[in-house]
């Protein structure tokens, strides 16, 4: 069983929603980014998504765009991301998913990338602008090294394509709760539950729901129908706000514990 599959099985058996976190590799710089990943793991994040900074993040809102700029300015890249993951992997229990735009992966070469990712201990890869139709070879290359390919599904995704993603994907499926770019919102999108139910009809794979989630109540709400909630921009904002302050790591840890606090209390909500 892959580390991702094992994690989602355990989360389910604990009767709580999983928490998936997103941070950009190299934000605010590479050493502190590594320390942040360890802190996330300590604070109880179940899956760590690690974003590869790319010069043209067209699916991201302003918060992650700025994180990307900070990371690039600090010398981060796909190679640096994989090196970083390799360094922290032995100290982290949670599965690690690389989140990237297609071009850095293609530039490195899919075989070389898959080799290096497997060597670094990467558990899954999600390529934002590599939809199912373009991802066939990519998925096979990763699968041959035991690395999961994670597909995004959106409210605009047809049932036929959900079916295809369910066949090709592994580890988990990532539901996008709303149309648009990444960014924290005040409430969970109204169509999110319908999307998760539509995906559920096609697959037994775990489903994580993201885009716009920022508070423990959101995690609990999403946990009532999905297997996990993804928190990205809101966490990246905590990192941005802390800036170079010495309590950066502490603030990150506190934020995730706060999110997890509600996660622990899921049962009430789930049966409400």
């Amino acid at each position, binding site marked *: 069983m892959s580390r991702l599959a094992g994690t989602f099985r355990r989360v389910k058996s604990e009767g709580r929603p999983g928490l998936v976190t997103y941070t950009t590799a190299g934000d605010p710089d590479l050493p502190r980014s590594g320390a942040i990943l360890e802190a996330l793991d300590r604070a109880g994040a179940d899956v760590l998504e690690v974003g590869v900074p790319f010069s*043209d*993040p067209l699916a991201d809102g302003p918060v992650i765009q700025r994180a990307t700029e900070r990371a690039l300015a600090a010398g981060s890249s796909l190679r640096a991301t994989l090196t970083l993951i390799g360094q922290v992997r032995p100290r982290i229990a949670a599965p690690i998913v690389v989140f990237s735009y297609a*071009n850095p992966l293609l*530039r490195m070469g899919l075989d070389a990338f898959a080799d290096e990712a497997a060597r670094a201990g990467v558990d899954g890869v999600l390529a934002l602008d590599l*939809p199912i139709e373009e991802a066939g070879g990519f998925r096979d290359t990763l699968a041959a090294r035991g690395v999961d390919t994670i*597909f995004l599904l959106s409210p*605009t995704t047809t049932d036929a394509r959900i079916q295809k993603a369910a066949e090709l994907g592994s580890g988990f499926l990532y539901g996008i709760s709303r149309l648009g770019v990444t960014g924290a919102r005040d409430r969970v999108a109204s169509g999110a539950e319908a999307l998760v139910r539509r995906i559920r009809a096609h697959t037994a794979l775990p489903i994580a729901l993201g885009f716009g989630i920022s508070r423990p109540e959101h995690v609990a709400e999403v946990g009532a129908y999905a297997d996990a909630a993804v928190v990205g921009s809101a966490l990246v904002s905590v990192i941005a706000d802390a800036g170079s302050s010495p309590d950066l790591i502490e603030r990150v840890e506190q934020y995730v514990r706060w999110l997890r606090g509600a996660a622990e209390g899921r049962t009430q909500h789930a049966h409400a």
Partner: protein
Amino acid sequence: MRRDPDVRGYFGEFGGRYVPETLVEPVEELERAYFDVRDDPAFAAELNRLLKHYVGRPTPVYEATRLAAEAGGARIFLKREDLTHTGAHKINNALGQALLAARMGKRRIVAETGAGQHGVASATACALLGLECHVYMGAEDMDRQALNVFRMRLLGADVHRVDAGSRTLKDAINEAMRDWVTNVVDTYYLLGSVLGPHPYPLMVREFQSVIGREARAQFRELTGGLPTAIVACVGGGSNAMGIFDAFIEDRDVRLIGVEAGGEQIIRGRHAARFAGGSAGVLQGTRTFILQDDDGNIELTHSISAGLDYAAVGPEHAWLRALGRAEYAHVSDAEALDAFQRLARLEGILPALESAHAIAYASRLARELGPSAALLVNLSGRGDKDVQSVEKALAQKDRS
């Protein structure tokens, strides 16, 4: 050689559809809608009516004898897209797509613009058809094409300033795509060149191919034959594909695309994708792009906002791989010089983009000698560039 991409939108190994998941279905919906209207005589009739009575087509082919005499060699003919309503070829595509958007029931249009000509064309088409228009434009381009910003606003469009990245065309496209992905239900993305995910490269080429169809017949009528070579500037590559298209099967006619050589072919100082680039994926398509070893997109530079972009249309990458088209580049200084020469010798102010084609054609005319005849796509007029040119000339005088 049939000229449609394959079902996945590939021209050989270039093209495809590299978009975020939310856009996959909207892009497929667009493809279905486009293929519907492509063979619909009523759609063609409506578009042709507008092209004739509103845009002023056909545009003439004019022999530039004084320019040619000074170059000293081949005859030079200009396809006068600068004489279209709004002053550039961009209107051919903007009207076609705006009609399509209206048919699809999408009343909100987003567009990107570099030189501002596509933005003006989109704003114009939207005014004509009663559609809401939002144009994204890089901050640097808003400064150097200020006249076009004002024109767009007069035409009722909202112009949104983009401060990210290089603050030019690439960043405007990122922002337009972010708007589209957010408002996809009622919004149509009116892309201005042969770029982006399938079906845009095909669709934009088809809407621009009227240029080559007219020019081929006009050139034959004027000379009784075909040109030795076609010369067109290449930003994304829409005016070039538009004029190349009718000549693809004429194997003896050389097809030459001219990229922006900027200051020099060194990293960050030019936009000649075929001189300094390699295959990669940017903004929905696999093509030649300017990138570093990590796969990040490099900054670009050109005196001309419309050519200042890190990727080239995928069909150009394919035509080059096949050996059917050739690509050259022209520096800022050469383009500036061609701008002035065409003004003084022919009484025509070309767009700085088009001035790149004029510069290369003059060079080629000398090389090929009097037995040759060149057909140059004069893609747009230069009113928008007068201030930039004034500034560049003042700088040149000082140095």
